[in-house]
């Protein structure tokens, strides 16, 4: 194999694994957007919160991110559930821009609280296995990325199962399809919305835990990830769970390729260009059903 090809393969694999984590993050946003009807403009900020939490767990209890996933997911589920019940629910019936600004305010509060508490310096977890890539013939696979991708994939599969095969999951999907109808047949829509918001937050939490294996953490990451999550959800197709995952992988790979062949700082431009094209020519997204 030529060196060019090996490079290409390495870049694609790395983008693919990162993309699955992106996909899980976007899946959380998609659930919140699609079911709870909330434009969660604080999604990336919640993820940054989870990243700090997992750094703290690591530095105080030596709990490494792979094992911190479970407690972080539980904490974020409760966080999302309570946040929705306490603050967000009254906004469900308000105009979209009102919601948008509420979540924006929450996002600004979260980002700057993190900045005040932890300072602007970058943080990371140092684990031995992050430095030992797996050699597969000529290919090098980063262990952190591999584990992160696998965990994210597992979490996404779990969410699929929950929505597809459990009673609660069916009820959540029903209230997403037609909330008036769901109310008529006696479902507690407010509780189901809060549940969806909690599940979406938990997805963001897990994605955050895994992301700490991939990037250095600064308080400013939140807004960037919020935008990224929206780009992915819209590219993949709103309301489509597979769409969110596929969109994540697509963006992950295109970012990796752009970062390698053009310039690392230019990679965002390709994502936004993709978003603009999709919005204009296929507004329902690549795998979305209807608008």
């Amino acid at each position, binding site marked *: 194999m030529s060196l060019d090809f090996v490079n290409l393969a390495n870049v694609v694999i790395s983008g693919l694994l990162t993309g699955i984590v992106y996909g899980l993050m976007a899946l959380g946003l998609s659930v919140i957007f699609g079911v709870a009807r909330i*434009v969660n403009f604080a999604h990336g900020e919640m993820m940054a919160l989870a990243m700090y939490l997992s750094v703290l767990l690591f530095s105080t209890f030596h709990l490494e991110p792979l094992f911190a996933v479970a407690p972080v997911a539980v904490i974020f589920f409760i966080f999302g559930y309570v946040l929705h019940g306490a*603050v967000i629910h009254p906004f469900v019936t*308000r105009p*979209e*821009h*009102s919601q*948008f*600004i*509420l979540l*924006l*305010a*929450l*996002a*600004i*509060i979260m*980002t*700057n*609280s993190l*900045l*005040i508490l932890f*300072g*602007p310096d970058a943080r990371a977890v140092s684990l031995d296995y992050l430095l030992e890539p797996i050699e597969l013939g000529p290919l090098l696979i980063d262990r952190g990325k591999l584990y992160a991708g696998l965990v994210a994939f597992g979490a996404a599969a779990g969410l699929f199962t929950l929505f597809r095969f459990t009673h609660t999951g069916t009820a959540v999907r029903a209230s997403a399809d037609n909330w008036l109808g769901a109310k008529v047949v006696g479902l507690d829509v407010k509780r189901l919305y809060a549940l969806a918001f909690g599940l979406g937050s938990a997805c963001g939490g897990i994605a955050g835990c895994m992301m700490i294996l991939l990037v250095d953490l600064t*308080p400013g990451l939140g*807004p960037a990830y919020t*935008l990224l999550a*929206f*780009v992915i959800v*819209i590219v993949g197709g709103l309301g489509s769970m597979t769409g969110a995952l596929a969109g994540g992988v697509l963006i992950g790979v295109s970012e990796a390729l752009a970062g390698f062949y053009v*310039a690392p*700082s*230019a990679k*965002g*431009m390709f994502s*936004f*260009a993709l*978003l*603009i094209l999709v*919005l*204009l*020519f296929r*507004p329902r997204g690549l795998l979305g059903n209807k*608008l």
Partner: protein
Amino acid sequence: MTLFLFFAYAGQAWNIMMGFAGQLSLGHSLYLGVGAYAAAALYFHFGIGPWAGLWLAIALCALLGAAIGALAFRYGVAGVYFTLLTIAFAEFARIGLDHFAWLGGSGGMFLKVAERDRVELLNLRGTPAMFYYVILALSAAALALSAWLLHSRAGYYWQAIRENEDAAQALGINTFRWKMLAVVISAAMTALAGVFSAFYYSSLFPEQLFSINRSVEIILGPIIGGVGTIFGPIVGAALLTVLAEGTNEIVVAFGWEVPGIKQLIYGIVLFAVIVFLPHGIWSALAGKLKVRE
């Protein structure tokens, strides 16, 4: 005061699009940045002064606004999707300019700073007082324009579209054309704010001009003051300025000088306003005082 008027002006420009016509843009930093770069580039590379350059800035931004509006409205991109489209264009421009060396790239572009005590109105170089009067005139003009627009034919059509677009269309209003008008006017006005900021600060960085934080700063004033009102953006900008100065004093007095504290307070204020006064402070106040616009 100059900063207060700057945000009052930019807020009024945004308010025409969102407050009057109901199209939420979170990408107004695009017009600010393009306006600033257009006028600054003409001055920097060709020595053409801002009074000529502002026409290029207005033309470019109106064109950009028209292009984004036409694409979005033609293809039925509405609501949240429209907002995200505006963000996407602004972010695209930000990253693009970071890599565009002719305009300074991410390192920024710097205009020659003249002696601060000589007023050179022709090149918009001079004392802070001169800038103050320039932005005061702009804000006053924007206020007059907003008041006139709101009670013109276009204003009533916009409000009809904002309240219920389908009903407006059913009544025979060409919603596409009127929404386009709102975007173009708003973009062109914001372009002037960009030209002003380029010459006021004399330095231009894509990270600052095009960043989403800039767009958020622009919309804070009108939202806190009252979206869709004539005086709301001004009241909001004034309150924010007082708040910013006040927090500065408090932060310094108590020795809490940590990065982020100002933004944290902004966030809390924004949160409180949207939860408790969703129509803005001016609307609540005007209701109490029985002032009609």
